């Protein structure tokens, strides 16, 4: 039980830090700093705000193994995922949607994450919100 709780804690922390960084920088602080005067100060602050780099790969390095561990704790193994037999479970389709969206986020991270890609960024954030919704349904059910 303790290992499961540690896994859930790490999973949630990784998600919150990665997605929090993504959403706040893209939607709030990045735009806010654009209009700081003078422009040289705006550029300095924006450059400083990203000095630690991105969080995607470190977060995924935690999210994927902890996610798989938590699935196994619920009786869904890698074999069940590979064979799609998990689709027969009551929340199988929702879980499938979540896993496909996670796959999209991995592809986004590999292809677009460190390049200018305004459309892909917003698609990625929408995927993140859908993953959160699917997670709520998997853990708490529909009603």
């Amino acid at each position, binding site marked *: 039980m303790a290992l499961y709780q540690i896994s859930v804690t790490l999973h949630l922390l990784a998600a919150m830090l990665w997605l929090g960084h993504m959403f706040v920088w893209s939607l709030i602080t990045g735009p806010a700093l654009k209009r700081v005067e003078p422009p040289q100060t705006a550029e300095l*602050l924006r450059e400083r705000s990203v000095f630690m780099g991105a969080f995607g790969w470190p977060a995924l390095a935690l999210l994927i193994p902890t996610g798989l561990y938590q699935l196994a704790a619920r009786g869904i193994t890698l074999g069940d995922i590979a064979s799609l037999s998990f689709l027969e479970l009551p929340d199988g389709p929702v879980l499938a949607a979540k896993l496909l969206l996670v796959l999209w986020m991995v592809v986004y991270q590999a292809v677009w994450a460190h390049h200018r890609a305004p459309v892909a960024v917003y698609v990625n954030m929408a995927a993140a919100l859908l993953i*959160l919704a699917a997670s*709520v349904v998997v853990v708490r059910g529909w009603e």
Partner: protein
Amino acid sequence: MGWYQVDALVHLVASLLVTGYTLFWAIMALALGRTARPAEAARLLGVVRDSRWPHVLVPFSLRLRLPTVGWLLLAVAALSGVLAGLLGHSVAVGGMGGAMTPLLALKLVLFVALVAGHALAMRRPQAPLLYMNFLLTVAIVAISANLMR
């Protein structure tokens, strides 16, 4: 999705945004502390505090300063959290059942500390306060993970 699930999603998204918000301030404090003299770092943190959002579409006078955005995020997190308690999801399916536990009480105490920390930090952004706010947020998230079943 039922109302509890919708509220849970709102709470998750608000928490994610609060996490990103306190992380942003901690990173700015760290970055400016390393590359600027203390007086200049303090000045630049004040510039960040006074920046406004959104940056387009809204007249400048109606744009929100970053601390106000922070207050809104904290308010949504708090309200959605209170609503989750009121909706009192059945313990039988993994919810709280509306009960106060020591862990939940600790979470609420830390949240109050975060609110106080935000108020102090936005009057005068200083690195120790900004780091503390971020650590409080991390602790709250970690506790929340252990409130779930």
